[in-house]
């Protein structure tokens, strides 16, 4: 199986990174357009917003997969030749790192828990990259601040470094402009 293309896009809130990522997928002339969403609704406004976006994308011919945790399960629904947009790393990390907080049993507090999930994520992304024709990964710039949550920030840095290293192209978005860094 030939390795597909991997593109990493990062930017601030409302920097236009999602639109740019969607445009890349739309222009890719691959098979299905697949939107792989990590977000999950915590209130009704969020649920409405998610629903509205899913409807908009459906009209535009997108297939949506919602996968807040257990990312590897999404692989089952990805076909060869698909163009996949994963939105986004920051949400996935929050879901996984703080998973279990309701039971007072957070992954972040267990030694080796996030390390195992990270190994798993790398494997899943590699498989996804092999299967899909195009994989566009979207993330956020949140590391230019005081250390607020060292564990979260350290993991996000690690993941971003890996993605940039493995990507064919990497973009930093600023107010709708895409700066090609790789």
């Amino acid at each position, binding site marked *: 199986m030939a390795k597909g293309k991997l593109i990493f896009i*990062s930017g601030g809130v409302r920097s236009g990174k999602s639109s740019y990522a969607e445009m890349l997928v739309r222009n890719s002339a691959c098979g299905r357009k697949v939107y792989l969403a990590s977000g999950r609704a915590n209130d009704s406004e969020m649920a409405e917003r998610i629903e509205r976006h899913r409807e908009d994308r459906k009209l535009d011919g997108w297939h949506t997969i919602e996968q807040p945790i257990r990312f590897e399960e999404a692989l089952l629904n990805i076909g060869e030749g698909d163009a996949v947009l994963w939105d986004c790393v920051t949400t996935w990390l929050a879901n996984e790192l703080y998973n279990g907080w309701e039971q007072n049993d957070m992954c972040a507090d267990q030694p080796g828990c996030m390390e195992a999930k990270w190994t798993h994520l790398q494997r899943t992304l590699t498989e996804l990259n092999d299967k899909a024709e195009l994989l566009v990964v979207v993330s956020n*710039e949140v*590391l230019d*601040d005081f250390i607020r949550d060292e564990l979260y*920030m350290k993991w996000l840095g690690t993941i971003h470094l890996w*993605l*940039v290293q493995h990507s064919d192209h990497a973009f*930093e978005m600023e107010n709708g402009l895409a700066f090609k860094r790789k």
Partner: protein
Amino acid sequence: MQIIFGGAFNGKRQYVKENLTVGDYCWCEGTLPDTSAESAVIAGLEKWVEQQLLLKKSEVQIMQQINEICLRSTSSNYIWILTDMNRGIVPMDALERQMRDVIGRIYQFLFKEAKGVIRIWYGIPQTIKGADQDENLYENRG
């Protein structure tokens, strides 16, 4: 004197270790090099600044010490690894607000003094000062 600049956990230290530190370098993490150090990497400056502020040092005194380091540095023997911390929301904590102000002004001073400044974005370098004028984006109108 050179500066490597960028957000936290972006691979700045790794970049310096792999590309810049040939020979003997004193690695100063959260401290300033003493006068005997001919070559030094100064990292974690924000920790040093925090210490000074906790010791009730004034910004003038802090700047004085930074200036002394600059005076004894030559073109490449001192490398500063500076973490961009000033793009977040205004901190609730008064000490953090003060740190942000002091760090911001120190960075401005160091950027002015440095021969070269490289910004690191997840391991990828970009020269933002000392790139034969290519950093003057306003002139890139072609």
